[in-house]
Every structure is written in structure tokens, then in C-alpha cells.
């Protein structure tokens, strides 16, 4: 039994159990699986958490909606402490909705199985384009459900097929077709190759290193690292007649195979194919003909009933394609200890290193209580002081601690993106870096009291994917007697996207979060 089958069986059993509809034999089976397999127990915890969190999410949503109700609400004394209530409405469980959901879950596990079965039986399927039939998908084995990659970006997607919706993070299995009426969608293959589909288009994931574009436009990008290695991808057999490409797009009239980096492919309503090379090289194969294109070149493949394949060469249309998914949604960057109480590990800030302290081990920063007369007051909704532990632990002087936080850009950095923030520190911020690039640090001192916040701003150096923001905090002041002293950092921060019209001249002073700069969204 494959791992996926085991997982499906486990989820099926869990759905039955959660609905109270599991029979004794299935219960025994569930118990056996859980007892034998630590991975199954982890999945068990995670799956239960999902159910729990979904109910909490709905409860919070309902509570928020009730707060927003316009009518005047009765202000009553708070309810007595007891009896305690569970986090979720008891009426839900055992109620008709719950029963239906359990039935739904069981039904859907069956449907999922049927879907997997359907996919597993398409091995003999061939794409024969009406009237053309010039390219085929090959005959590779697709005997089991295989994930070729994941959906890593969606923007303003409308689907030609109303049931074809997906979400970021979902798998892109072999055989899956995506019919996009409009919008953008990015698939990242396991090899690292990225495909940006631009609606309207129809695309099918055909192998772990390629797909079939029936119509519309896409851009395929293969990382330099992969290209440099030049290794043949496993599962690439269908296009083996081409010289070790890393990624290939099949269309009704051609096969466009990457020989390094980035290209665009467009298939018009007649099935005619135009490929544009943005970086590196591609090989375009149509029937028995093969054309090699370099960066900046394009080739159009037409099929003429009398002449056969007609190849026209031109220059690449760089602006015609969307080559990168823009970042979507809010950019989540957290202040130190934001939304935390004192004394707990900060899930978002990490102390990565301590220069001059050989005994230091990297650790999560810990939110700490501070003396209000000497330190800026923590505001948990924005930031809380952090250190290596609660209650301001004494730490060796002369050590430079590097505090680190990360945030994600799930696409190319939007224009006008800015991190605006303010820090307070005991004793001194020696450097601020974004992705290793230095950021200007405002003038500030070393000595207490640490009541002032110092604004900072970051406007460039952002990258697609994970961004790393670091603060180097040096501990200790000039006093030679003191060998250990308190060290802590407080950072309020927010990511905003400036409107294109906002001036960026030298006189522009960054607003700190405390100033109430609210153009952007967190």
C-alpha cells in the first residue's frame, strides 16, 4: 500500500470516527494504524486540529459579525465563570449539519478515490488535436497518483469550468487540467520549474517536467541553478528526442523545450504556436523540423494544409507575457512580540547569533517585562520588548545579538513596497539588514532610559519568497565595572505599498507605525 493510500484510509477512518459512525472493526483498524505508526499519530493530531480550528474560525467570524451589528446591544453584567463552555457550540456536534458533514467527508473520500482511479487509468489516453495531431503526450507510465508540483500563486482567477477551482498550496497532480477564463496562476514543479498561466488558457500537467498548452499563454521559468547543473529530470522520457531539456511545453503544433532559463509560449485559436525566449535558449520541434532560439528571439509555428509546417522567426515580445506573479494579499510582518504576553517565546522573532559569546545557542526570542520608567511601554497590539528570556535577563557585555524575523512575498515585490517601523533598544542597534543589505540606522544613544523610539524605513532589497530582516543589538555600555547587563529590543513594523503618486524625494520622512501611517495593509 502506498503512503497516499494509507493516508486516505486514515482520513476516511478519522471522518467516520469524528461523526460517531465508525463501526467496531474500523475502530480496531484505526487503533492499529495509530499504535503502529508515529506519522499516523501526527496526522491524527493535525487532522483533529483542522476540524477544531475551522469551528473556532467560524465562531470568531460570527462573533466579529455580531460586534459589527448596527443595533444597540444590551450591556449586561459579565456571565458567571461557571459552568465553562467548550470553545465550540455543542449544538453543532450531533446536530444535523455535523451528521451531513461526516456523510460528506465519507462521500468525498470515495469521490477522491474515484478521481485517483480515473487519473490512474489515463495512461493510454492520447491528445489528438482535431485536424492536426502533430504532437502526442508519449506513453509514460502514470499508474499511480503522482504530484508533479504545487499551485504557488493565483490572482483574479476565473475558471472556465466552475468546478475547477483550486487554492495556493494545493497539489498539481499529473493529469490535472486547468482551464482559466481569466487571471493568473502559477504552478511550481517539484524540479523548481515555474509556469505562469495567463487566462484565457487551457493547460494540463503532463509530466514532472512539462505540460500541454491547448490554448492561451504561459511563461515557463527554470532556475539558473538547475540549468547550470543540466541534469536530466526523472520522468522526462516523453520528450527524450530533445537534448536533455529541463522543461517542455507541448502545444497542438509544437514542442517547446527549455535548454536553460525562461521562455513564453502562446497558442492561438487555430492552434498555431509562437514561442518567445526571454533568457537562455529553447528548442522548438514541429514535426520533423527543429528550430533553436536564443534570448530575444521568437518563432511562430503554423500548420498549413498544403505546405505542412511553416516556421516564421521574429523577435521576442517581452511585454506580452506576465513573467512573474505579483505578490498578492497583505504582507505579514510582525513587530517584536506582537500579540504576545510577557514570558512567551516569540513565534516570529529569533535570536540567530551572539557575536563574542561562544556559549550562545540560537533560540526564539522571548517577550520580556520591562520597567516602565526606564523603557518604552510595550504595546502588545504593535510590539513587546524581547530578549533571551523574561524579566530582562542579565547578559554579557560586549556581545552583539542578531535578532531575525522573516516575512514572505509570494510573488514579485510590489512597486512602492516599504517597511516602516520604529525601534527602541537596550543598548544599541549596530546594524539593520534586509536580506543581507544594510539599512540606514537612525542616530541613537547607548544609555538608559530607553524610552524613545527611532524610526526606520526600508524601501529596497526585497525579494520574491522569504525575506529576512535582522537587527544587530550590542549589549553593554562603556562602564568597565559592569560585566553583565540587560539587553532587549522593541520593534514596531508594518509593510505598506505606497501609491504610485506618492513622492519619494529626499525630504520624505518615513512615518512610524505609531504615527498612524495607515495607507498600507498588514
Amino acid at each position, binding site marked *: 500500500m502506498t503512503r497516499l493510500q494509507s493516508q486516505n484510509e486514515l482520513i476516511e477512518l478519522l471522518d467516520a470516527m469524528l461523526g460517531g459512525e465508525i463501526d467496531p472493526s474500523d475502530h480496531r483498524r484505526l487503533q492499529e494504524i495509530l499504535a503502529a505508526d508515529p506519522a499516523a499519530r501526527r496526522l491524527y493530531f493535525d487532522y483533529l486540529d*483542522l476540524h477544531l480550528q*475551522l469551528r473556532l474560525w467560524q465562531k470568531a467570524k460570527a462573533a466579529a459579525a455580531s460586534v459589527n451589528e448596527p443595533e444597540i446591544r444590551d450591556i449586561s453584567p459579565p456571565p458567571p465563570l461557571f459552568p465553562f463552555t467548550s470553545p465550540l457550540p455543542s449544538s453543532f456536534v450531533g446536530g444535523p449539519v455535523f451528521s451531513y458533514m461526516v456523510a*460528506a467527508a465519507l462521500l468525498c473520500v470515495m469521490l477522491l478515490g474515484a478521481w485517483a482511479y480515473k487519473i490512474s487509468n489515463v495512461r493510454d489516453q492520447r491528445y489528438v488535436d482535431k485536424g492536426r495531431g502533430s504532437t502526442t503526450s508519449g506513453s509514460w507510465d502514470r499508474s499511480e497518483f503522482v504530484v508533479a508540483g504545487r499551485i504557488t500563486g493565483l490572482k483574479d482567477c476565473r475558471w472556465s469550468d466552475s468546478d475547477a477551482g483550486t487554492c495556493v498550496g494545493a497539489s498539481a497532480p499529473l493529469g490535472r487540467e486547468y482551464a482559466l477564463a481569466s487571471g493568473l496562476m502559477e504552478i511550481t514543479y517539484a524540479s523548481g520549474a515555474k509556469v505562469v498561466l495567463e487566462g484565457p488558457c487551457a493547460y494540463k500537467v503532463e509530466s514532472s517536467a512539462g505540460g500541454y498548452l491547448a490554448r492561451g499563454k504561459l511563461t515557463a521559468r527554470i532556475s539558473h541553478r538547475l540549468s547550470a547543473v543540466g541534469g536530466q529530470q526523472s520522468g522526462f522520457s516523453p520528450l527524450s528526442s530533445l537534448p536533455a531539456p529541463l522543461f517542455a511545453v507541448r502545444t497542438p503544433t509544437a514542442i517547446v523545450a527549455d535548454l536553460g532559463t525562461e521562455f513564453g509560449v502562446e497558442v492561438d485559436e487555430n492552434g498555431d504556436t509562437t514561442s518567445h525566449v526571454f533568457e537562455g535558449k529553447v528548442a522548438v520541434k514541429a514535426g520533423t523540423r527543429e528550430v533553436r532560439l536564443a534570448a530575444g528571439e521568437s518563432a511562430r509555428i503554423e500548420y498549413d494544409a498544403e505546405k505542412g509546417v511553416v516556421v516564421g522567426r521574429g523577435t521576442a515580445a517581452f511585454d506580452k507575457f506576465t513573467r512573474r506573479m505579483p505578490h498578492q494579499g497583505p504582507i505579514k510582518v510582525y513587530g517584536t512580540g506582537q500579540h504576545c504576553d510577557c514570558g512567551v517565546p516569540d513565534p516570529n522573532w529569533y535570536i540567530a547569533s551572539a557575536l563574542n559569546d561562544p556559549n550562545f545557542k540560537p533560540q526564539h526570542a522571548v517577550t520580556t517585562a520591562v520597567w516602565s520608567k526606564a523603557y518604552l511601554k510595550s504595546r502588545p497590539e504593535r510590539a513587546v520588548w524581547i530578549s533571551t528570556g523574561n524579566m530582562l535577563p542579565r547578559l554579557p557585555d560586549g556581545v552583539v545579538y542578531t535578532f531575525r524575523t522573516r516575512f514572505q512575498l509570494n510573488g514579485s515585490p510590489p512597486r512602492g513596497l516599504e517597511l516602516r517601523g520604529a525601534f527602541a533598544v537596550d543598548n544599541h542597534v549596530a546594524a539593520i539588514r534586509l536580506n543581507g543589505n544594510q539599512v540606514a540606522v537612525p542616530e541613537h544613544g547607548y544609555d538608559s532610559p530607553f524610552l524613545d523610539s527611532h524610526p526606520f524605513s526600508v524601501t529596497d532589497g526585497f525579494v520574491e519568497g522569504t525575506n529576512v530582516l535582522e537587527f544587530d543589538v550590542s549589549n553593554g555600555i562603556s562602564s568597565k565595572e559592569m560585566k553583565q547587563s540587560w539587553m532587549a529590543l522593541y520593534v514596531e513594523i508594518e509593510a505598506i505599498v505606497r501609491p504610485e503618486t506618492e513622492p519619494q524625494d529626499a525630504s520624505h520622512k518615513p512615518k512610524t507605525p505609531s504615527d498612524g501611517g495607515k495607507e498600507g495593509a498588514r
Partner: protein
Amino acid sequence: MAFDSENQRRRADDLRRYEQFVGLFAQTHDNLFAYVFSLLPRWSDAEDVFQQTSLILWRKFAEFQPGSDFLAWACRVAFFEVQNFRRAAGRQRLTFNNELIERLAAERDVGPQRVSLRREFLLECIERLSEKQRELLGRAYQGEGSIRQLAEQLKRSPQTIYNRLNQIRHLLFECVEDAMRRRRTEQ
């Protein structure tokens, strides 16, 4: 009036204890329920045990060492309540055997960081759903009516609704797992 001042002092102490307990309990409420639910994955059973545990925690609060881990203490109390419940329920309930319960209890991590991370990722994943998917999910978990009624409202067959809900849950589960994996890789 020594008698009155003594009473006032007791009342002040009670109030302080009460506030301390409520503060700690409120912070760990969801995590404790998650712990109980993982040992007794039948909703009504978990609710019963959770409520009983809450009462015992309050009664025994004097035994709690201030500054120590309240959630760990609460989980220990809850574990015994789960065992009591299993004994009382006897053969009326399909529950896990003792060995598995102990293993699950030992391996269950309901630490604030893990739970809050998963919650955060789930919220992100929910945001990534389409508006229609979110609406469907919200309505299904609202408990206002049956799936059949929901299907009627949406002019869809119940089977379509079942299918979509299942698909959404699977997407979310996969999305959260993926985010957790990425976080582990980054750190």
C-alpha cells in the same frame, strides 16, 4: 473592627485568585480542549470531560505552583479525567485502549506556539480560498441548517456541496501542512 477587615482581606484574596485563574484559563482554554479532544475524539465526550476538568482545575487551583506551566498542569488533570470517563463509559463507547491513550497523551503537543502557528497558517490558507469557497465553508460550519438546506439555498445538489466541502477541507489540510513544512525548513 478586626472581623470586617479579616473578611475584606479574604474577599480580596479570593478575588485575586479568581482573576489569576481566569487569566491563565483563558490563555489555555483552546489548547486544553484540543488536548482532551485528541484523547476523546467524540465531540460530546470531549465537552463533558473538558467541563469537568475545568471545575476540578478551579477547585485544585490552590495546588498550582504560580510561575509553573499552567497548561501542563491542566493537561495532567485532564488526563485523569479522561481515564475516569473511559472507566465510567465502559463498553458503551468505542474508545482507544489504554496504551494508545497514554501514547497520544505523551506525544500531543498543544503548546501555544504550535497551536498558534497552525491557526495562523490555517487563517492564511482560508484567505487563499476563493470567496465562494470561504462562504461555503463558513455556512457549513455555522450550524444554522442542514447541508441539504444549504444545497437548496445555493441551488446545488447535496452531493455537489458534500464534494466541494471535502475538497476544501483537503485543500486546507494540505495547505497548512505545506506551510508547516516550509516553516520547519526555514528554521
